[in-house]
């Protein structure tokens, strides 16, 4: 099932992005960390600032115009995985 464009994405309680100059971004959470790279970092950074799914896709397409339709599929897959791991909240 495709995520609705207007669902709101936010980092879950207790999850926060750590960005230090010269170091890869890291998502900190209870009992674990997620080291981010490339598109993963771009997605999490935007979710951390509060986005709807449509806004997230729009910004990613603008940032990676060469990615094409595959970007939608990969982004949704990643967002769903983050949600399954309780790293992000998805609300209507």
């Amino acid at each position, binding site marked *: 099932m495709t995520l609705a464009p207007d669902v709101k994405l936010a980092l879950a*309680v*207790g999850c*926060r992005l750590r960005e230090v100059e010269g170091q890869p971004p890291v998502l900190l959470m209870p*009992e*674990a*960390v997620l080291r981010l790279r490339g598109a993963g970092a771009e997605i999490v950074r935007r979710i951390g600032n509060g986005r709807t799914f449509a806004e997230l896709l729009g910004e990613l397409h603008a940032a990676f115009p060469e990615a094409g339709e595959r970007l939608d599929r990969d982004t949704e897959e990643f967002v769903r995985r983050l949600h399954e791991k*309780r790293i992000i909240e998805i609300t209507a």
Partner: protein
Amino acid sequence: MKAPLSIICELTHRCPLRCVYCSNPLELAARSLEMTTAEWAATMEQAAELGILHAHFTGGEPLARPDLNAIVAAARRAGLYSNLITSGIGMTEARLDSLLEAGLDHVQLSFQGRDELQADEIAGTRSHAYKLKVAEWIRSRRVAFTVNLVVHRRNLDELAELIAFCASLGPQRLEIANVQYYGWALENRAALMPTRAQMERSVEIVESAKRALADKLRIDFVLPDYYGSQPKACMGGWASQTLIIDPAGRALPCHAAGVLPGLKFDSVREKPLRWIWTDSPAMNKYRGDDWMAEPCRSCERKTVDFGGCRCQAYLLTGNAANADPVCALSPHHELVKSIAAAESTPTCATTAYADDPTSISPRAEAAGKSSGWVYRIFNPPPGIPKADAAQANAGRTESCEQPATATTTH
């Protein structure tokens, strides 16, 4: 040298609770030896510089330190993720708000049971009713919330009810841990050891609860060691993922390591944290597999479980370099099986102090080991059995499945 993920800060050994399964060492650090605020703050900076990402504040009861806010703030300034592991005693709503303002990310609140009498007996003091208030305060604020529940023979028969109780407190995560037998828990092993039937049933109950509560909370379950045939990957390997700092500043690869003979654990008061982690002889003693003897040396699981727990090997076999006797391949494995069989008999349990645990003199409790609980005592009087042990149950980290666009480290 890979940096540890976590630093576990035992800010104090002082604690208003006297839990019978506490895995602090029996010889607790006196208040006068505790590190100062400035020393902890400097340690946070050094930890971040080393590459550490998580700071766990524990004890004893970390709320016993009036400067906890300042230490949490120092961790946040250094960029660390901070986790408070607490009994809740000493918390107020104002103090919780202040800690969150200082940057606290995660609170782990322990419960000893769902029934006040039972919980307070295990804690050795009246605390359950207050913990319920603290849970409500935490739940009503935007902070990650884990409930910790320690299970043992006395409460495993009501595990399903205990899980329901913990879930009702509203955490995002529930950690159910069987007692690990170090420190005070080792002293009470005969009264805490579950039966095999309890252990097997508990696995089914937890799996069922995980499915039923999947959309509400995550459940992590630590199995009882003595019934296993493969040892735990203690601390993810000696000096591999976690660094413990005791109240006096001593750096240890696990809580219990202080018991091991012939090792000098350096202090952050005297040496830089980076040197301690990378170069100190104690941290390198059991790194890798050069130290291993058979059956570990040629075992294909040596990179999975690292030979188990060094402290448990020492406590049960007298040699820390032996395979953890929990391993079925250990020549000492029968010892573990016989201990579990002998000490899981219900006759070892006691309710001697259930009526009013706060009224019992610590000396009487300690002396009464054969007939009841050995409660944790902050300043043990002479004559109390001294520990060969301390704890090796922390530094918990979890794996996180690797998404297509990111990599996970833990």
